[in-house]
Structures are given as C-alpha cells and as structure tokens.
C-alpha cells in the first residue's frame, strides 16, 4: 500500500491447547496499517478471537499456550512483553472491546469510575481530571444525559448503552490500535448499525486503527479497508476489502461470499459449504479446507504457501491465481 512499515505486524502467530497435536491458530500473519480497519472474518471456532486474545496477551494459559510468532507494534514485540509492560500497553496504546456488553462491565462499579480508572492508571492524572475525561468520552460515544450516566451502575444501562460505555473506556486513552471482538453480535440490528456508525466516526476522529473480528460479512462490507479470511486457524486469504469482495480467490472465501443473502435473487436457495470445520484433533495435514473443497486435488495434501495475486491480495491455495478463463 505504502512504504511505511505497518503499525502492527503479526508474523507466524500460533496458539494451541497444551499437549494438543495441532495448533488452533496456525502461523497467522497480519499487517495493520495506521488508521485502517482490518476485518478478520471466519466462522465460529476458526481462531479469530484467539488471535485477538493472543495479541492482547490475554490467552488463559493453561489450557492455551502461545506456540510462537511475533507481533511487532512500534518496535516492540507484544507477545514477549513482560507482564508489567503488557499492563501498561493494554488500555493505553492497544485496547480491546468485547462481544458481551452485558457482562463486560464490573457490575459493582459505576460507569464513570470504570472509565476514569483506566485513565488514571495510564495517564496518572488526578481523580477530577480522570472523571472529566470519562464524561467527555461518554459524550463522545453519544450517551444521552452523560453527566447522569457517569454515576450509573452497568445494570441500569441497556445493551447498546453498555457497549457505548465499553467503547468509551477503550478509547479513553487514545489507543493507536483498537481490537474489537464481535462488538455488535450481542446487539439487535438497529443498535448494531448505530454502534458501527459510531465506531467509524470515532476512528476517523482519533486516527486509531481497528482490528474488527466478525463473522458477519455485512459488517465487513460496511467497515473494512482490508479483510483477512480465517479458516480453521489459518489465514486463507487477505487483502484489500475491494479485492476480496470483487475477486475472491480461495474456495472458502468464494463459498462465504455466495452464502451471503442478497436482495436480488429472492427465492433461490443460498449456497452452502458442505461439511463442517474439522475439529482441532482431526485437522488435515495439508490445506485445512481440502476435505470440504469442491476443487480439491492431490497438491492440497501439502500446506499451500501464500501467494500474491494482486498488489494487496494474498491467497493460500494451490489453484490461485484463478485464471480469468479457467
């Protein structure tokens, strides 16, 4: 895209359950440029969330274990940070928003205090200043009557409001990278649209880069600058959102795209991908999509290397690039 090094560069990230034979997240490599939104898509259990948790140093070990990889952020490897430095990094330069707004706030702490706490912790400002910052953040995420909500407990807010509060907390210290793990999945569709719109606005204001984890291609189309498609713990295709949507190369991506309902062809059956994701214990040795792939061939028995098929478009499939008239 440009000559600047990426803001966050993940190389060969692997995670497995202690003692397991195969990795749940296998050799994942990603690049996140300043200010861009990278969507990580894939079905449940493909390792999207594990990837995010690993980046935040939040893997619960045991049972999970980081098997290797690097995540370079401003010259530091996030994966090898000492606990103390990690705590300083989290919530300050890298912040995370979780899926469940209903349970992700401390029920016995007022909203304002929770936000102020992260500000105080990372900026060392006075209680009054931290509270002022919390109020400012609540106003920025457009929580009505923000002054009154500052002293509300989480159970007094609706799901949408709580997710706004979570966003306020995550952005309170102006992080350079925000990781959002299915931030709208637990919300209904209208609230979801509001939250996404809000996040876009805030990202544009603050210039933060976003890693958005989702299984919802509608959300991807709305938000993504770049897209990484994950399947069974591996990145199968990554590139500019436009390239992925207009010219998907990996059979899995193609399957995903065509399984998305659209307005045009009502009445037609949706395309489905036969079979299920292989379980972690029964991962095929080569391409992990091979057992479900309609185009499988002998070469699929070995792990295909990622190939560039465009200026910002990589695919891990032996058949790529697909010929125009293939």
């Amino acid at each position, binding site marked *: 895209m440009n000559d600047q090094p990426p803001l966050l560069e993940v190389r060969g990230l692997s995670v497995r359950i202690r003692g397991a034979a195969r990795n749940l997240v296998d050799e994942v490599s990603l690049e996140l440029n300043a200010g861009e939104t990278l969507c990580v898509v894939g079905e449940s259990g493909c390792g999207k969330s594990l990837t995010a948790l690993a980046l935040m140093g939040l893997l619960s070990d045991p049972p999970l274990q980081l098997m290797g990889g690097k995540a370079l952020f401003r010259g530091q490897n996030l994966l090898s940070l000492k606990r103390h430095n990690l705590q300083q990094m989290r*919530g300050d330069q890298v912040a995370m928003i979780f899926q*469940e707004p209903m349970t*992700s706030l401390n029920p016995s702490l007022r909203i304002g205090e929770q936000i102020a706490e992260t500000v105080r912790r990372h900026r060392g400002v006075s209680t009054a200043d931290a509270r002022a910052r919390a109020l400012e953040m609540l106003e920025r995420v457009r929580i009505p009557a923000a002054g009154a909500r500052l002293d509300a407990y989480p159970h007094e807010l609706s799901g949408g409001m709580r997710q706004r509060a979570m966003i306020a907390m995550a952005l309170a210290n102006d992080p350079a990278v925000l990781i959002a793990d299915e931030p709208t999945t637990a919300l209904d569709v209208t609230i979801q649209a509001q939250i996404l719109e809000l996040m876009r606005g805030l990202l544009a204001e603050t210039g933060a880069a976003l890693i958005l984890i989702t299984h919802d291609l509608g959300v991807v189309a709305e938000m993504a600058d770049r897209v990484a498609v994950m399947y069974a713990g591996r990145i199968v295709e990554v590139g500019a959102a436009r390239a992925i949507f207009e010219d998907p190369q990996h059979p899995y991506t193609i399957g995903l795209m065509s399984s998305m309902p659209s307005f045009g062809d009502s009445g037609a059956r949706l395309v489905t991908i036969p079979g299920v994701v292989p379980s972690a214990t029964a991962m095929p040795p080569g391409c992990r999509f091979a057992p479900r792939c309609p185009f499988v061939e002998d070469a699929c028995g070995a792990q295909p290397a990622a190939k560039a098929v465009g200026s910002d478009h990589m695919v891990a499939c032996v058949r790529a690039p697909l010929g125009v008239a293939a």
Partner: protein
Amino acid sequence: MVEKLGAVAPAPEPEPERPAGNRALRKLRRSPAALFGGLLVTFFVVVAVLAPVLPIPGPAETDWGAVRKAPSMAHWFGTDEIGRDVLSRMIWGAQASLLAGVVSVVIAVLLGVPLGVLAGYARGWTDAVISRFTEALLATPFLILAIALAAFLGPSLTNAMIAIGLSAMPIFIRLARAQTMSVLTEDYVESAHAVGVGHLALVWRYVLPNIFPPILVQATLTIATAIIAEASLSFLGLGQQPPAPSWGSMLNIAKNFLEQAPWMALWPGMAIFLVVLGFNLLGDGLRDALDPRDT
C-alpha cells in the same frame, strides 16, 4: 444487511433511576421472616446498648434479702442464687453475647477473606498451602476447635472471641476463595485485563465488591453460630468470667437450681434462642434478597 440508519442519534433510553442496593433492600423488606429477624436483632442490640442507662440494679449487685426469688414486680425476671437481679444480668449479658458474636465474626472475616482471595487469585502453591490449612481446620468440629483454642489461650471473653473467630475463619477462606475464582472467570475481569488494570486494583475494585454479598450473608449467619459458641464457652467457664454476666455462665449456674429456681435458666435460654433465631432469619432473608438469579 447493515444499512445506514441515518444520523447516529442518541438512542432513546428510558431514564433508569434506581440505586443499586435498593432492589435487595426492597426484597428484604417484603419478607416477613427477615423483618422479624431484623426486629429481634435490633431489639437485643438496643437493649444491650442501653444497659448503662436503664433503671435496673447493677448486674453484680447482691441482695441477700432476696435470694432465688421468683419473678415479681420488684425483680421482673426473678433473682439468682446470691440475690442478683436476673433481668439486669440478662441485659448486661446481651452485651457480652452480641459483642462476642460480632467481634469474633469480624476477626474471622478480616483473616479469612484476604486469605481466601489470595488463594483464589494466586492459585498454584499459595492456593495449595492455604487450602490444605483450611481443610485441616475444617476437619475439626467448629465447637471443639473453639473450646481447644479458648482453653489454650486461657479463659476470658477476649480470648473466647479470638478462639471463636479463628474457628469460624476457615469457612470464610473457602467461601472467599470459591467466589474469587468464580468472579475471575467473568467477562468484566477479562475486559479489566484488556484495559491494563493491575493486580491490586483488580482485587480491590473488581473482586472484593463482587464477592461481598455472599460474604455478608455468611457473616450474618455466622454471628448466630458465634453467639452459641460464646454461650457454650461461658457455660464451660472459658468465656466471660464471673462476676461479669454472660448468658452462658448464667445457664451454667442455673443448672444447679433447675428445680428450685427454673427462671434462672429460662431467661438466658430463651434469649440465646431468640437472638440466634433473629440472626438466622436475617441471614436467610439477606441471602434471598441478594440472590441475583431471582429477581
């Protein structure tokens, strides 16, 4: 699927104005049993606090002209074997009982909760050591342990309170450990990690407030147990020392005069029964009121 819905107007939200503790309090007030328990406890507390100003003879004042007299207008609850007013001794004895109940539970909570939180938070070796220690204490019946400790420390009300507090401590270690472990699996703890909250802040602002309700319930119920334990120790002569009054030691003396002066045993027995009932009902009510599953 996600069409733009125009401007991001602030979502219309009903104004929810309800301080957090109110729901539990309202539920507590709706329970007749808990109310009754609360009344009993309040009554004994008020009486014990007012002991110095009530128009009653001193608890150690003897009247050799009125030895073992049945209840009358002069001595509502009768007199004991050396002519002391039983009502006065009951009222002053309430101080000892309530004090012993509350102080020993405070000791148990102040020692037990930090140990339990530490075990549940640190896990590993720390947890193993604390848990084995707790199990060893729990293997000994509560009262036996209290008696042994009190005998070891020497007979006095203070030592009885320490002994009861130490004996009640393992329950709080266990409870706090289990509750801590359960709170640590909550999403909000993970999100606290994600914003860089440190260990101390996590324990202080995330773990402790959220394990408070069950600890409060257990503490209330344990006060009842502790009061019985104090009465038992005093009955055995290991608690409050004569001539200072205590319901337990009053019972001990009364057992010698059951046939001649049954009132000497009746009042302390009834008082222990009622105050323990009160704390138990209150504790049960609190447990129901603070139960998040049942709204």
